[in-house]
């Protein structure tokens, strides 16, 4: 690893000041599980690493009834998985957390670091997509909110401006009667990046049943399978025909590459399969009359 200087600001304001002073020479670090690996591989070489881990404003997870859950930038993947409100209302997010790396890395890696890394295989990305998360950002221009659908612009690219820090993200309350899941396909259970990941959220609202489906690791940007969502709309117990059509529609929305982890063709047929399974699982859970 090349040498660098490290700053450990104690407040958001001082972090912003440091970032402004050093401009493109500075890089932000939360857990550091991506940053340290990238620095070791010389993929990035910041002169100043700005460690956010001592900033109290960025810690914690809070749930606001009817509104949603706010996840701080320093909330680790394990903290999020073990949070009672996440267990109760955000099973797709919890599944995604438990599919991430292993128990040890999850003690260090943050949920928002995974989002900010903006790597297509990022396991938290599909869950953020189906929950239509909003990112709260602080920077030289003050505070602003970014809808998750506008956040990731390409592999390892996002719409943060220089000097901006993500402070937290809100995942709106999905409703009392909802079910969700995240299904990840990888070569082994622990410590492997997703070949394909599919998140599904089914909600019984006033206007009837709606589904939200998002696929990860199958395109440069996160994929919302809106075609599949429309096919399923209003159907509480989708049969095989409908599931087939939804699976095909999700595959059509995807545009995967072939890499060391899987070929394009394999990924496409797995998007189809995982979409069917995820939808069936959510429908089954709601059928049981139990929101989970």
């Amino acid at each position, binding site marked *: 690893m090349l040498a660098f200087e490290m700053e450990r600001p104690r407040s958001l304001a001082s972090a912003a000041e440091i970032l402004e002073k050093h401009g493109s020479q500075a890089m932000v670090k939360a857990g550091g599980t991506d940053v340290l690996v990238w620095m070791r591989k010389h993929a990035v070489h910041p002169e100043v690493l700005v460690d956010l881990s001592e900033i109290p404003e960025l810690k914690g997870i809070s749930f606001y009834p009817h509104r949603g859950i706010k996840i701080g930038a320093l909330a680790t993947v394990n903290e999020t998985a073990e949070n009672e409100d996440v267990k109760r209302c955000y099973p797709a997010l919890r599944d995604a957390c438990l599919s991430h790396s292993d128990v040890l*890395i999850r003690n260090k890696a943050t949920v928002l670091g995974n989002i900010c890394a903006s790597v297509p295989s990022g396991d938290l990305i599909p869950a953020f997509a189906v929950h239509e998360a909003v990112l709260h950002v602080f920077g030289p221009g003050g505070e602003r909110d970014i809808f998750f659908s506008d956040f990731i612009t390409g592999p390892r690219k996002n719409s943060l401006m220089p000097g901006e820090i993500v402070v937290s993200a809100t995942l709106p309350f999905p409703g009392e009667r909802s079910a969700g899941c995240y299904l990840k396909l990888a070569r082994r259970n622990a410590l492997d990046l997703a070949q394909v990941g599919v998140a599904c959220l089914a909600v019984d609202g006033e206007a009837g049943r709606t589904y939200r489906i998002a696929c990860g690791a199958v395109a440069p940007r996160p994929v919302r399978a809106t075609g599949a969502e429309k096919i399923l709309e209003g159907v509480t117990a989708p049969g095989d025909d409908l599931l087939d059509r939804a699976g095909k529609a999700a595959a059509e929305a995807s545009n995967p590459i072939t890499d060391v982890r899987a070929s394009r063709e394999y990924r496409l047929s797995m998007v189809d399969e995982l979409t069917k399974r995820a939808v069936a699982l959510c429908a089954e859970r709601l059928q049981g009359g139990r929101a989970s």
Partner: protein
Amino acid sequence: MKRDVHFILNGKPVTFSVEPRTTLLRALREYGVTSVKRGCEEGECGTCTVVIDDLAQKSCMVLALEAEGKSVLTVEGLVGPKGELHPIQQAFVDEGAIQCGFCTPGMIMSAYAFLRKTPDPTEEEIRVALAGNLCRCTGYIPIFRAVHKAAAVMRELGHIPGRAR
């Protein structure tokens, strides 16, 4: 530029002088704590596992300066004042869970953090807890057996889960 970092290592306050790029793994080894093994240095293998403020962490993924004010426990810290092995260490010996031994300190630290939280674990829970620690020798089965046995011994000894001996 080197800077001082102050933390508690196995119950004693220490000060290390380190560069910002020095990982906790390298700092510990440089200061003679050689139970912490340098494997992949990419967070994959778990041979560098230590316990920081109650959480098992891969020390190659932690910069030494991040240890400021924290409490760091390595396998050296599990040994009693007269050299008595901790029940987890003893179980590893008894069950043949050690062959070359390279993975052992990391395995034991993962198991230690895990058993503090889960004093009566299932087989499945043990497997998940150790999924981030690779072993190229034993085939894992004796390791899982050792963790089961250590859990039973610790429960019997009335070890308050969470208390370093």
